[in-house]
């Protein structure tokens, strides 16, 4: 067996792993990735609280804040358990952090935030952002986000990230001071533009396609799963009606009464058990959602590559055309159609001085252009190299995480089946005593 970490040993042979246990396994995996940050500190999003205050347009609003706790690693292992450092952040600050990371590291697949609004809900699940269950799941999602960033080989050493975890006041200003927003424009351009790249890197094109497909299939999966959850809820709850009618029926029976009554209780228990079952399944849905949003991040990297490539190609194209112009000017041969060429044909050629000036200008432009192309080329190569490393890292992470998610899903299903068998066996015993 490959030495891929302790979490596998915990899962194999032990199908009674609860979702929270498998969540811990995921955290352990990330911790073991051995980033310097996680070697230093433990990070968690411990609590969530409601606050009210005035917003930017001076209106009252209610929002939720999350408590980020950090604790030095050694202290915990020494067993002294000191009070952790903590600060409160709201969702919009997490968003700001992520945007900063996206812009600053366009070649990295930046971990996604939990969803802004509840999607793929089935009827018992609230779509309300203030609903305590939603807030709780968001808390978990935010913690996951921080751990993902903290376990990334490159992102974990970012200073802004560090101060997000440690500096409550003035962090926002620090972020804006980096001037990342200027770069944000080019990122937006990348995401929204429709340009054609002549020689796209095949690998990136395939990756983008993969991202599209992944996003589509996970969306579909989440949609159908939510509908199925609704139906399953119905099946279990209707069985509760048996509880009531058996109880009423037992009242008119002599010998059959006890058996019926007790069986009825088991039917009630069966009906009630679906709430826990579906809550656990939401955990699985959240794991899928993370990768739904990860797919988006992946596509963003591919799009950024395209933009970089495009800009290189534009620069190269521009250089080529300038060189051509120079040649034409130098040899007097007009190879390509140009307005200048036509007008000079019609109205006579320019003076030698004019030509000289033009040639000189072109030379300068060509020099600059060559520099630009060299620059862009280097950029492109750098981008491709860094991005591809991260994409490979991401692929491995994705394969591992999704596999773990499927395993914990199977374990969930096994637990549900075992509970079902137990309840019906109990009921059967009561029936046989009727």
């Amino acid at each position, binding site marked *: *067996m*490959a030495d891929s970490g302790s979490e596998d040993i915990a899962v194999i042979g032990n199908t009674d792993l609860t979702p929270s246990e498998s969540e811990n396994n995921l955290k352990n995996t990330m911790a073991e990735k051995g980033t310097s940050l996680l070697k230093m500190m433990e990070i968690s999003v411990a609590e969530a609280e409601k606050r009210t205050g005035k917003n930017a347009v001076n209106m009252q609003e209610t929002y939720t804040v999350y408590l980020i706790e950090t604790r030095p690693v050694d202290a915990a292992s020494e067993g002294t358990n000191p009070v952790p450092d903590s600060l409160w952040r709201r969702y919009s600050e997490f968003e700001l952090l992520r945007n900063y990371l996206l812009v600053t590291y366009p070649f990295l697949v930046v971990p996604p935030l939990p969803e802004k609004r509840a999607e793929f809900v089935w009827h018992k699940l609230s779509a309300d952002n203030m609903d305590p269950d939603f807030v709780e799941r968001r808390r978990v999602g935010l913690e996951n986000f921080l751990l993902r960033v903290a376990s990334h080989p490159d992102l974990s050493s970012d200073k802004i990230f560090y101060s997000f975890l440690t500096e409550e006041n003035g962090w926002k200003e620090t972020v804006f001071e980096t001037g990342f927003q200027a770069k944000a424009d080019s990122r937006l351009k990348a995401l929204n533009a429709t340009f054609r790249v002549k020689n796209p890197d095949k690998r990136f094109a395939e990756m983008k396609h993969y991202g599209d497909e992944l996003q589509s299939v996970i969306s579909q*999966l989440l949609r159908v799963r939510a509908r199925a959850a609704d139906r399953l809820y119905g099946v279990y709850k209707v069985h509760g*009606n048996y509880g009531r009618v058996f109880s*009423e029926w037992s009242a008119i029976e002599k010998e059959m009464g006890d058996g019926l009554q007790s069986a009825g209780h088991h039917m009630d228990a069966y009906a009630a058990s679906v709430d826990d079952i579906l809550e656990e399944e939401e955990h699985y849905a959240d794991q899928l959602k993370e990768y739904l949003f990860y797919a988006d991040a992946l596509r963003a990297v591919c799009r950024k590559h395209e933009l970089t490539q495009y800009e290189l190609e534009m620069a190269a194209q521009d250089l080529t055309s300038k060189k051509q112009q120079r040649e034409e000017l130098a040899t007097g041969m007009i190879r390509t159609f140009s307005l200048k060429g036509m007008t000079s044909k019609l109205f006579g050629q320019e003076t030698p001085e004019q030509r000289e000036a033009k040639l000189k200008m072109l030379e300068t432009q060509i020099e600059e252009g060559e520099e630009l192309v060299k620059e862009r080329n280097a950029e492109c190569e750098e981008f491709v190299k860094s991005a591809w490393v991260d994409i490979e890292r991401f692929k491995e992470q994705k*394969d591992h995480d999704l*596999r773990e998610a*499927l395993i914990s899903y199977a374990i969930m299903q096994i637990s549900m089946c075992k509970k079902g068998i137990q309840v*019906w066996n109990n009921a*059967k015993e009561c029936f046989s005593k009727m």
Partner: protein
Amino acid sequence: MSAGTPRSLASSGQRALQDISHPLSAEESALSRSPDVLNPNSAGERDLILANGTPVDTSSPASSSSLLNRLQLDDDLDGETRDLFVTVDDPKKHVSTMETYITYRVCTKTTRTEFDLPEYSVRRRYQDFDWLRNKLEESQPTHLIPPLPEKFVVKGVVDRFSEEFVETRRKALDKFLKRVADHPVLSFNEHFNAFLSAKDLNKRQGLALLTKMGESVKYVTVGYKLRARPLEFAAMGEYLDVFTQKLGTIDRIAQRIIKEQSEFLIELREYGPVYSSWSSFEEDLHDPLEGVSGCVSNCSSALEELTEDMSEDFLPVLREYGLYIESMKNVLKKRDQVQAEYETKLEAVVFREDKKSPVSSDVEKCQDRVECFNADLKADWDRWQNNKRQDFRQLLTGMADRNIQYYEKCLAAWESLIPLLQDKQDTKGETN
């Protein structure tokens, strides 16, 4: 008690019944009771007359009085030593120019001397069962006749020749005959005998038709108003009313569950394949995703089986009990009528007491009818309660079993998936 004892009104007739100690009482101890507890008058053959004038068939050994003698010789009638076994199986479609219909094979094995042969195998159609039931109701009006499955099905809505429908019907017909065969009185009925043994039932039916009066002869004497139903029969009536209600509720719940499960199944059938299409563009995850897809598919099949079984086995039995209850209610009503007639006639006689005319034999006969009816009914009631208890124990245990089987199938599917999902670690180790 002798015939000279003044008869009181039927409402206190219970005492007389208890003294009689009906031989068909379901209590085990009844069989060991000595015959001298019996009212000597009921030991003789009485002329019991139906309202339409035809005599009740008391010449057969099945009449309540002489049955006593048989019981003392027979072993425990509750099923340990049965001497009559009946089954209904092998449905076949018959196509003629006039119609298409299904016949069922009815097999009988018996040691009873009432039958010429020890074994019979005849083919009967639903019509024949219906004929039998009508004859039984006619000739054994004081007894509860088991119900038949519904006669009419709306053509075009239900496929009368579909496998499920035929099988459901066959089971109900089998149940019907078994219940008749197990009944200590009904099983000795000559029409039942003919049904089981006659090569050409139509001839017998034809003969019977001549004497038959109307659709089904109702042993109901109309026009007599009952003062009060005796307590124990009133209690039966109340029980039946509540029981009907509860059965109806259970039926509705079962239907609703089937519906919800069917909707769930529809979603599952869409859910599984999504994993499959996902696996088509994954490398490492291809096998795990395919595995999940297969698993969901297995669970879907298991669920489909569960809903089908519940539909075919559970619901029909519930409905049949509804019919059974209706039959029982009708018997109670008939009993009321008989008692009402007796009370009315008795009052008339008492009213004329001053004339010192002897108690008319008509009133005596009425009283006998009441007493016999009450005795038969009580015995049938106890038997019915017993059977009901067994039937529902079986039915509900069956329901539990099917659900257990469903979960076990799903469990097996998911458990077998786990090693497949964890397999990556092994292969990775090898390739490394």
